[in-house]
């Protein structure tokens, strides 16, 4: 098992009347940036970076940063900047950027260059995630969502070629055309940094990741148990269809985890922060969460058929926890449930969100410390065979 501490860097200071949905239909796109206070932001960014840096001391394999635009849920519009600050303050751990929102940028070679720089500076500690960006961001950035899939695939192809082929060479796409592709620097890792793809809702994405020339890790993000299983099964089926057995390290699970001495204490301490995440930070206007053409009409029909499962606001902490949207409990509870998860789902990457919502700094450190001392080593021992079989070989 590999453990990557995930941080979203949310903006916790929402307006006092945020519970009034008629006034504040979303934490995205339309929530005014007058609620962002740069003086507090200065302290908050540095506090959050301290938490990420602390993960190395605690023995995590790495940390994850990500990209979100113009919202209170996550204040990292430029994840490569976060990775850059972390590289120079850490020595050993991996830094996973999950990921750069390819269709949201007008030039994929900027991503290729920046990630290559980070990989070279860090001595090959970068994991490069690629995402399409969530629906709301197509509103915030004015990018046409109906070309999102096309732009993602084409930008991906251009970036991978720019990292693996000797330049200069021409690239002729529908959305991107460059006469002289010749990216300096080249990434340090060969053939290029590992690619992780966080996903939600699309089986096509899973199959694309599993294709033998890619074998990209697919990350299930904030999914209930049965959907995580459905996607990992789909990944394994796709890999078998391609004629190979996928490594558990091709599958990752990202969700909030909180550990305390007892179940009761854990719920008391974490409950409000989980609710901040699911009731506030993830409050979207449906039409903005799913802009036109972001998913195909058949996929959209399928998503609408399980829309009730995305209605987090109707769920209390217990229900969120029972369904697998988060994991809160004592060391024993958390160990037990993770062991069952990993056994049942056979995945090798765990990306615990150990800070979430408006969790204060001391509580975050406490959660990180207890996870690192009492859960992580236990699971590493428990699943040592997985490591021996798959990771060393890779």
């Amino acid at each position: 098992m590999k453990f990557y501490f995930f941080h979203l860097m949310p903006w916790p200071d929402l307006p006092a009347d945020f519970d009034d949905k008629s006034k504040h239909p979303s934490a995205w796109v339309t929530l005014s940036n007058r609620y962002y206070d740069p003086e507090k932001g200065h302290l908050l960014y540095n506090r959050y970076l301290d938490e990420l840096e602390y993960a190395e001391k605690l023995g995590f394999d790495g940390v994850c940063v990500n990209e979100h635009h113009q919202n209170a849920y996550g204040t990292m519009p430029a994840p490569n900047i976060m990775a850059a600050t972390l590289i120079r303050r850490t020595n050993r751990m991996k830094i996973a950027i999950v990921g750069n929102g390819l269709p949201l940028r007008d030039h994929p070679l900027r991503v290729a260059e920046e990630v290559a720089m980070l990989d070279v500076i860090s001595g090959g500690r970068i994991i490069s995630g690629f995402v399409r960006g969530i629906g709301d961001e197509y509103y915030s950035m004015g990018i046409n969502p109906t070309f999102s899939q096309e732009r993602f695939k084409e930008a991906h192809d251009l970036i991978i070629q720019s990292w693996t082929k000797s330049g200069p060479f021409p690239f002729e796409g529908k959305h991107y055309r460059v006469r002289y592709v010749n990216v300096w620097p080249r990434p340090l890792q060969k053939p290029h940094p590992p690619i992780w793809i966080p996903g939600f809702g699309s089986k096509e994405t899973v199959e694309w990741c599993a294709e033998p020339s890619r074998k990209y890790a697919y990350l299930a993000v904030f999914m209930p148990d049965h959907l995580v299983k459905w996607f990992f099964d789909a990944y394994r089926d796709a890999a078998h269809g391609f004629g190979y057995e996928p490594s558990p390290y091709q599958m990752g699970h990202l969700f909030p985890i909180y550990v305390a001495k007892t179940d009761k204490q854990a719920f008391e301490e974490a409950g409000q922060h989980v609710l901040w995440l699911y009731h506030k930070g993830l409050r979207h206007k449906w039409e903005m969460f799913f802009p036109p053409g972001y998913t195909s009409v058949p996929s959209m029909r399928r998503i609408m058929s399980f829309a009730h499962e995305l209605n987090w606001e109707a769920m209390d902490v217990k229900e969120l926890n029972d369904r697998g949207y988060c994991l809160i409990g004592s060391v024993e509870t958390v160990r037990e449930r993770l062991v069952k998860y990993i056994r049942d789902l056979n995945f090798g990457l765990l990306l615990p969100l150990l800070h979430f919502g408006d969790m204060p700094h001391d509580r975050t450190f406490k959660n990180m410390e207890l996870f690192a001392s009492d859960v992580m080593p236990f699971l590493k021992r428990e699943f040592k065979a997985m490591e021996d079989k798959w990771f060393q070989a890779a």
Partner: protein
Amino acid sequence: MVSGRIDADMAPQQDLVEVRGARVRVLRAGSGDPLVYLHSLLGEVRWLPFFELLSRHFTVYVPENPGFGSSAGLERIDTVHDLAFHYADLLDEMGLERPHVAGLSLGGWIAAELAVHYPHRVRKLVLIDAMGLNVAGDFTPDIFAASPAETGSLLFKDNDSELAHSFVSDTPSPEMLDLMLASRQTLARVAWNPYLHDPKLQDRLYRVKAPTLILWGEADQFLSTKHGRLYEQRIEGAKLTIVKGSGHLPPLEKPEETARHICEFLKA
């Protein structure tokens, strides 16, 4: 071309026309000079009272845009210009050399582009609450972010009417949901950004040769009358007429009055 009758009451023909290998659905009825109607963002390709009224005087053709309903060929459509070329191809396929062309909303925009690209293919032009222009400082609401209920009140003067509910609904039938999703996606493809307009169109409207009537719903909450005025200014000889008591969709909301204006203009 494949033809078949679809509605016993109103008795239009439904043609399936191949345009560059993609099948497009076209409703057709009536007799007299040809009149092609390009539908709005709602994809109203079903036999409406408005079409029946027009078909008493004209041979009315109502083609369905690629990407709407069951019409194919969307993968070739990236911009509104692709749609203009598509309709030029469709006129060729249907053997219509120089029909009257009317368009509502999205269809009005396409009609204007068609008349700019192919001035001699349009006999007379009718633009109804047409998208296509940007009026500086005029705020056009974001239709893509609108819920079905919000969409209804943007487009219809009476959004609680049976008519409005037959096009936008919070609880659509599966067929209606498909059309709503497909319409939204198809419109976004050509009109997400720049939003509902072509920045060059205004400067190209001098190319329109056809006599032009501009109709606008008095109570259009979506695209203000300022857009109609700008079309009127930019197309030589064009005349703007306001349709009283209508929102964004005069052919649906005020079929008699709208059809009367159009017939008077086309027969003059």
